């Protein structure tokens, strides 16, 4: 298949070799799990349990609330010790409503929904319902409820389900391992999703730096004519949905549209596997594979971790730190977020935990922009980071918006390459947040205004109607009066 070039991009130090040869190991069940009610984009789940309740493994403990939401399930059997605010893996470190589960060590399964024996005979709706009930969210990091994304096939005619195995973030190797060790499950899950979407074709895109994963997936896909496995160039951020879609199809997603508008839906490999487990086995999403790596970790590993495990337990499982880490990162080093503490739990979107040494972080105080232009050359979105940053620094958000700051995918390439260490993405995230806020405000004002206007016109209309009625009455009265006079006259 012909590939298409994508603009810009960088080649960071990948350091995948730290963990790539470590087979996935299963973490022994922790004694305590912390399950936040919001692990996804959208509305938080609503708890179904209270302190003291006994739950079984796989039992739903919080149900989805609203159109974009996802339920949570108990990763093991045990007793709910509290439903309370606890630290969450959000960079702000703010506490979040969390279900705390004390494991009883028996790991007893609850009654699970029936496996769907032949998913391809089932209706797309049945698959989507199962995915929704299983609490599956995008596991590449975005954590968007997968069932909602599977609905895209209803309004749009889809051509390709693109399975994202690019794993372009440095250090992370969990998708690589999942593809190497569970290729059949991933392909099966992908085919099930394609069926639910009504997409005739599945393309699995994997960066060329993962030859074993490419081989394993190609082998697993060889039985199916409509599943194609493609190696894509190693070029960060190849894993960005829009860019991967462009690399595979040559189609450029218009601003403010979705790749689905071009007939392409993108899902992550781990999500495909989770869908397969939910459909074929009836198992909800209870655990995920993630990478613990970085120069400060004694034994980097790929681990299958129950949702709700605290990061500190993972670090201990990996032999602890061999030096004081300079940064703890939730996710990959390019787009991940700073980890507020080791006490936060792993959630469904956690693809990696990194403990980086000062040399790896290579931080320095920002210097002046020397206008080297590299950030312009490498920006995969065709933006001009130095100019946008200059505007934002001077609080000219509108000017930055005109230059397209809202199109920025926050890939971090510009910050990474800036020889002056200017925190460009930080500026852009700030600006995007502020602009969104402004937008919301404006919309609110707009809405209040239309409401007020509607109210006013309603009153006007009512008044006019009243007047008209009055006039009619008056006219009628006159007529009557007139008629009476006439009558009188004629009498």
């Amino acid at each position, binding site marked *: 298949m012909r590939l298409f070039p994508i*603009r810009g991009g*960088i080649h*960071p*130090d990948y350091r995948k070799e730290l963990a790539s040869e470590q087979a996935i190991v299963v973490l022994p069940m922790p004694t305590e799990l912390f399950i936040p009610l919001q692990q996804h984009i959208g509305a938080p789940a609503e708890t179904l349990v209270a302190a003291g309740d006994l739950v079984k493994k796989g039992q739903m403990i919080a149900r989805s609330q609203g159109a974009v939401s996802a339920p949570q399930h108990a990763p093991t059997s045990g007793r709910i010790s509290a439903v309370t605010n606890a630290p969450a893996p959000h*960079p*702000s470190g703010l506490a979040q409503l969390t279900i705390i589960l004390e494991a009883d060590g028996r790991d007893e399964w609850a009654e699970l929904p029936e496996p769907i024996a032949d998913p391809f005979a089932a209706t797309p709706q049945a698959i989507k319902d199962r995915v929704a009930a299983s609490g599956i969210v995008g596991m590449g990091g975005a954590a968007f409820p997968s069932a909602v994304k599977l609905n895209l096939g209803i309004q*749009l*005619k*889809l051509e390709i389900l693109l399975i994202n195995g690019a794993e372009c973030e440095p250090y992370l190797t969990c998708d690589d391992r999942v593809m190497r060790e569970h290729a059949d499950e991933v392909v099966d899950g992908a085919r099930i999703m394609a069926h639910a979407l009504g997409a005739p074709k599945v393309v699995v895109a994997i960066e060329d730096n993962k030859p074993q994963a490419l081989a394993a997936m190609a082998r697993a896909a060889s039985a199916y004519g409509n599943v194609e496995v493609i190696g894509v160039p190693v070029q960060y951020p190849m894993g960005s949905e*829009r860019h991967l879609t462009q690399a595979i199809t040559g*189609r*450029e997603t*218009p*601003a*403010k*549209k979705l790749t*689905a*508008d*071009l007939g392409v839906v993108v899902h992550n490999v781990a999500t495909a596997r989770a869908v397969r487990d939910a459909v074929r086995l009836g198992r909800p999403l209870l655990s995920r594979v993630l990478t613990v790596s970085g120069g400060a970790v004694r034994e980097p590993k790929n681990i299958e971790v129950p949702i709700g495990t605290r990061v500190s337990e993972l670090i201990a499982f990996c032999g602890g730190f061999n030096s004081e880490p300079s940064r703890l*990162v939730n996710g990959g*080093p*390019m*787009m*991940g*977020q*700073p980890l507020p503490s080791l006490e936060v739990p792993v959630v469904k979107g956690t693809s990696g935990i990194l403990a*980086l040494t000062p040399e790896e*972080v*290579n*931080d320095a105080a920002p*210097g*002046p*922009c*020397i*206008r*080297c*232009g590299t950030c*312009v*050359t490498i920006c*995969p*979105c*065709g*933006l*001009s980071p130095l*100019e946008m940053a200059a505007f934002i*620094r001077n609080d000219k958000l509108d000017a930055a918006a005109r*230059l*397209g700051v809202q*199109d920025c995918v926050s890939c*971090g390439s510009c*910050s*990474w*390459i800036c*020889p*002056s260490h200017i*925190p460009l*993405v*930080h*500026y852009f995230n*700030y600006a995007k947040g502020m602009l969104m806020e402004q937008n919301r405000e404006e919309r609110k004002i707009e809405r209040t205004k239309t409401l007020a206007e509607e109210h006013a016109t309603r009153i006007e209309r009512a008044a006019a109607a009243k007047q008209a009625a009055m006039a009619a009455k008056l006219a009628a009265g006159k007529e009557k009066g007139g008629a009476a006079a006439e009558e009188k006259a004629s009498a």
Partner: protein
Amino acid sequence: MTTAIQTRSGPFTHTANTVQKTMTAVLWALVPATLCDLYLFGWPAILLFAVTVGACCFAEALCVMAAGRPAASTLSDGSAVLTGWLLAMSLPPWAPWWIGVIGAVFAIPLAKHAYGGLGQNVFNPAMVARVAVLVSFPVVMTAWVNPHPLFSAGAPGLADAINITFGGKQPDTMSAASALGYIKTELSRGIPVSASMQHVPDMMDMAFGFRAGSLGETSALLILAGGLFLMVRRVISWHIPLTVIGSLFIMGTLFHAVNPERFTSGLFHVFSGATFLGAFFIATDYVTSPVSKLGQLWFGIGVGVLTWIIRNFAGYPEGMAFAVLLMNALAPIIDQYTRPRGFGRTRRGEPLPLNDKVGQK
């Protein structure tokens, strides 16, 4: 910006590249040509070079300290050394010391720090300085000498050199003209190019540096080698050098074909004057050139064409410095019109139209 940097967004890794490394690479790229030229022009050139670079560093330190910042960290970025170095390369090698010092005053406090320091200046500081001293001291600035290689017969020793550079004792030999200057003077006397070309050094000598001129104008091949080294190291890209040299060559060749009595050949233009130094080291200055590759192409073409025009029609034989400054002034405008096309948008910033054959039901 009000948000604190502690919750700073990623990335949590960074390229090893720094401003300092970039500047150091540029300095290394200049070393071979500089050594060769210092050897060719001997002690007076060495003294002038040291004075000019020293004065620029000193001026930088003063400016930074006046702004209340520590001088050491700013000096270590290497930009002041580079400015001084490029300025020295553009002076007549036997010019007196005060030319270097006055140049430094124009370059650092006036052309750089008055605009706000590194990254803020609109004009290339070294070229501002060169043009300023050229306009103010035209006689001294056009007193070229033929090469007097170190330790060769007739070359000034250290003591003579001190007299030349610091004592104002310019020897009589200082009457040589640069090739560009010679042809221009001859033309003004009514002697056609075809005749005067017989007397300029042949192309090989020009390429290797055996000719009169400023440090940076001689040994074109070593400058070229340094420029290629910078390209290989990806400090600069081909866009500016190629368009500068290319457009100069095309202009020269075209007009030479039309009127060989009046215009020198394209190749002559490429190998004479400061073409290579300008194309690889001066026009490529990050701060004062456009940031997008498309903008750099336009910028390079502008520099090449303007250089040719000034060399042929203006009062000065060499036009590179003027051309660069003129294009520096245009760089912000070029930047505005050559921004890349945003992903998913048209050149004018509208979202791309949806191809309604795909996607829609």
